[in-house]
């Protein structure tokens, strides 16, 4: 019983939040103001934790300590400035050739060796107290928070500004926003919006509670989220709840090669749930729905195609724009 306590609690907090994704965040405010005391070309930037950080005039060596920021840096057109990422990073494929360092716990020594001009952190999964360690190492670090699709696109612009690829980043963000608007237009034509249940795990029924971004994604995909009223960050659903709520479609982040029959095997009473009865169980690549990156748009597109196949003729939609180096 008691050994649960012997696992370092911080590790669990981190691990949990790693895929718990976006919570609350302050509004980012970046400004390029000349600071005479620190040199004419130094910029002062305020991050989402409200910390004010001085940056060199141009940032050439960037380290990200959360996988979603790596993806955003690439989308912002600054992937070539990355000099190191965490061992959890796996996208885009270009990261494979970069040095990887451990993230749990954060390998400060390995990061210091990379001599970054700027470290980018995710306020929702990285420990804010790490900032002190980075300050002591004299490495500037900025924390960003993400809670909506719009905010993610906004961060693409912010990071483009910081890393000197502002026009590339703005163009990428514009096209992402246009893609969202186009998708919204398509799904708005749907005659009915199916009740949609999103499950994070197939066995233990982790789902998204009322404050989650997931309901907005399901709405954009043309569905109604079944767990939007549950007042918890990440509830473990009761099987009864699913039976009485009667979702018409079930999405899961169980991976792309998941066999939907396994869901019924774990929950044999669900054979009368409309989604199960009609064979509308779809498993998605977790990285497309649990990671706060522009790839969420691809996750939403896949959900929209499953929810409203009639609205999406057979042609595949092109993938979200990534950097062309």
């Amino acid at each position, binding site marked *: *019983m*008691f*050994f*649960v306590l*012997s*696992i370092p609690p911080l*590790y*669990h907090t981190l*691990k*949990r939040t*790693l*895929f718990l994704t976006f919570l609350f965040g302050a509004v980012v405010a970046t400004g390029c103001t000349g600071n005479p005391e620190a040199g004419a070309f130094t910029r002062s930037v305020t991050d989402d934790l409200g910390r004010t950080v001085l940056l060199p005039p141009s940032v050439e060596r960037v380290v990200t300590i959360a996988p979603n920021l790596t993806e955003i840096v690439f989308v912002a057109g600054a992937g070539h400035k990355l000099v190191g990422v965490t061992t959890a990073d796996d996208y885009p494929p270009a990261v494979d050739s970069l040095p990887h360092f451990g993230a749990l716990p954060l390998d400060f020594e390995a990061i210091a060796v990379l001599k970054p001009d700027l470290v980018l952190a995710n306020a929702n999964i990285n420990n804010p107290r790490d900032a002190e360690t980075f300050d002591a190492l004299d490495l500037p670090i900025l924390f960003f928070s993400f809670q909506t699709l719009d905010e993610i696109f906004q961060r693409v612009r912010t990071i483009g500004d910081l890393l000197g690829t502002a026009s590339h980043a703005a163009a990428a963000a514009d096209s992402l926003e246009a893609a969202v608007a186009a998708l919204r237009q398509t799904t708005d034509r749907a005659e009915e919006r199916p009740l949609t249940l999103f499950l*994070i*795990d197939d*066995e*233990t*029924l*982790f789902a998204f509670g009322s404050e989650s971004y997931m309901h907005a994604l399901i709405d954009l995909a043309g569905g109604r989220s079944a*767990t939007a009223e*549950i007042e*918890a960050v990440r*509830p*473990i*659903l*009761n*099987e*009864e*709840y699913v*039976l*009485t*709520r*009667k979702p018409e479609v079930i999405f899961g*982040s169980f991976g792309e090669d998941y066999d939907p029959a*396994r869901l019924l*095997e*774990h*929950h*044999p*009473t669900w054979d*009368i749930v409309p989604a199960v009865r009609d064979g509308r169980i779809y498993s998605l690549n*977790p990285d497309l729905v649990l990671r706060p990156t522009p790839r969420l748009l691809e996750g939403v597109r896949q959900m929209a195609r499953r929810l409203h196949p009639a609205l999406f003729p057979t042609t595949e939609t092109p993938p979200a724009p990534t950097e062309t180096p």
Partner: protein
Amino acid sequence: MRTLLLTVGGLLALLLFSVGAALAVGSEVALGEVYRVLWHHLTPGALPLLDETADRIVWQLRMPRVLLALLVGGGLSIIGVAMQTLVRNPLAEPYILGISSGASAGAALFYLGFLPPLLSQTLSLPLAAFIGGLLSITVVYLVARTGSRVSVARLLLAGVAMSSFMAAITAFVTYASPNPQKLQAVLFWLLGSFSSTHWDLLPLPAIVTGVGLLLMIGLARPLDAMLMGDEPAHSLGVPVEATKRLLIVLAALVTGILVASSGAIGFVGLIVPHAVRTVVGVTHRRLVPLSFLAGALFLLWADVASRVLLPGEELPVGVITAFCGVPFFLVLLRRSEYGFG
């Protein structure tokens, strides 16, 4: 004898009422519908079913869940009695010989993909947990045994050591796991839950717990004697070593199966026997049946709490047993002139 029968009868009535109540609470199923479903299944053909959803909820989800909660609560409580008498130590509980840690390690190894699924997906986890528990207690037993005698001190120390060892395995595999989703599931399982109970999971726990209860009632007199120590018990004609071995095997079997079916639910096996002793004293003739009933009742209501406290959500039942059980137990300890053995 009459008071014992009266108490057992009273508790049984309370149990029956509790089962009825537990089946009726939860998400929006009308009371009439609940009993209609029950009547439909108990008297085949008498009443047609109206609502399929209500049937699934009451008969396929709540009923097996209620029954398993009763079995696990009762089973862990009598094994708690057995362990406390075996080692003559009030701190003893069903998990003291490393069974739960072993089962948890087995479950964690399986969950996180370090062990292949041997049977079907749903049965492989209990199997992995059972093998883990059995492995752990086998090592403990082999260490504690010298010739035909079992040293209680060595049994306890080996149990504690083995628990730590197995816990280290669990900690390591959870730390090394690349899959955060599954990690959450393992933690949920480790705290114990009846959330995934279905009828297929019931027969084995029912058989071992039933056998355990009958054996423990049959052993009431030898167990009373053993409380006085090995020598006095021996001089009273109790085959002490054989009884010890029987208790260890029984504990391994019952605890192993129960932990495998519902996770390592804590505190029931420690608290219930002590709470019952404060009321009826230490004689096993009373202690065993009453502990079984009290443990069953306690875990039944703990499970009800775990599924209705947060609407639509599940809490690990182990959290409830600790939250409600421990303060109650402390008050009981403080208020009564409690002596052990």
